């Protein structure tokens, strides 16, 4: 194992074809969509709530009738931090900024903030972009809207 490359970046590209696969693979679905430059959430067919990032059970009504759907990547910056001491996988990126963004649908999502620190302020409008150097959920970057 090499901490410089987070283990979880070990991607699996096969096909699961189990007779009765009862596992709702929300993370794999999120990652497949983010590879296409799309942010996604879980839509509950029982109460219609869309949660971002997607989850296998609805937090509002407890339903498991969940489908992963694309959502709009627009929002406003709630909070942020510039990190000067990072893990080995980000040591070539310091300092870098991460932030939590509230999307237009009210859901929230964490990502790298790709905006000069001097321009950052509470509620700054941002839009999702995607880093081609990284894979999976790590691709998300917030840019100025």
């Amino acid at each position, binding site marked *: *194992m090499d901490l410089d490359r987070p283990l979880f970046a*070990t991607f699996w590209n096969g096909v699961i074809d189990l007779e009765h696969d*009862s596992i*709702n693979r929300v993370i794999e679905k999120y990652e497949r969509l983010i590879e296409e430059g799309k942010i996604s959430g879980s839509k509950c067919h029982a109460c219609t709530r869309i949660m971002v990032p997607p989850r296998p059970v609805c937090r509002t009504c*407890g339903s498991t009738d969940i489908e992963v759907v694309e959502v709009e990547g627009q929002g406003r910056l709630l909070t942020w931090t510039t990190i000067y001491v990072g893990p080995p996988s980000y040591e070539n990126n310091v300092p870098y900024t991460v932030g939590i963004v509230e999307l237009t649908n009210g859901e929230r999502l964490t990502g790298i903030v790709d905006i000069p620190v001097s321009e950052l302020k509470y509620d700054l409008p941002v839009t999702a972009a995607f880093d081609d150097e990284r894979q999976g959920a790590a691709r998300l970057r917030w840019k100025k809207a």
Partner: protein
Amino acid sequence: MRDVAVIGTGMTKFGSLGRVTSRELVTAASIEAMKDAGIEPKDIDAVYIGQLSGDIFEHQMHAAPGIPDYLGLANVPATRVEAACASGGLSIMHAVMAVAGGFYDLVLAAGAEKMTNLPTAHVTEALSMCADDVFEVSLGVTFPGAFAMMARAHDKEYGTNAEMRAAVAVKNHEHALLNPKAQFQKQISIDKVLNSIMIADPLTLYDCSPITDGAAAAIVVPWEDRHKYEGIPVKVRSFAQASDTMSLHDRSDLTGFTTTKIAAQKAFRMANLEPKDIDILEIHDCFTIAEIMALEDMGFYKKGEGGRAALDGETRRDGHLPVNVSGGLKAKGHPIGATGVAQVVEIANQLRGKAGKRQVADVEIGMTQNLGGSGSTIVCHILERGD
């Protein structure tokens, strides 16, 4: 201390499950267990999870709160317990203790591991860390290596041989043919076991349990509440845990586990039962020799008779003491943290008549034995079909 019932069980398919987190696996197994019991997430008071190492396998520690989180529950206490391959058994046991002690009224006991992300050599390294790092692991002792040394000691003392060990593997693979959730669905022969590649002499590839992803879950409630839920309840007659030295070389007997003896005796005593009262067993067969030693140490066979019993078919599904009808760790698969939970799931399902094609007729009392490291932790449970 209140009596306790298992009223729901769930389990994912065991195998190489691809890009999925153990958290998603536990969620799936838990949903199945909740549906089985006829309950909803909001009914859950607390969660336990057995997991060996989310850090090594998934770059994720702190697995416990992730489960109520994914079940859409907030704020429910969630605790991870770890004792190597006995982590799952401790998850069940702590759920049972929490209900028996009156702390909670409905507890989800889960277990999971996502192991196939790593190459075999790294899994070997990770599992070896369950033994003494300084005085065993740094010297190249692997998990199969530790059991191989015990197998050789057992062979010397009791004349156990490779064919007897192979009979355990053949039996458990045969059982797994009837378990759609088992990792392997293929018949093997004694010759196949004997002629497969050597892992740690005298144990070959087919003497060893595989690398597996999977999760299992059970719902535990007070016995007095059992009729509030759907289906046939199972009574937890007893639970027991024991420890031993980390290093094999610090134990006087290398042909079995003192820990298994002690935990089994405690479990029998608490349940006021004897080995002859047990109708069905799930045993920790991480290696074929482990099943043989456990049956002896638990008192089902005299020392040296465990291998013969397998060879003679006594522990087959249709034998007089069915052992590992689920396929065992050997063929059902061994997702470390899930294993101890899956053993209880299998026994509970057998006692409730819900074991599908592999249902054993007329079983009323079943027992599990879950082992951690090279026997440094043992957890046993005895379960009985309820009314």
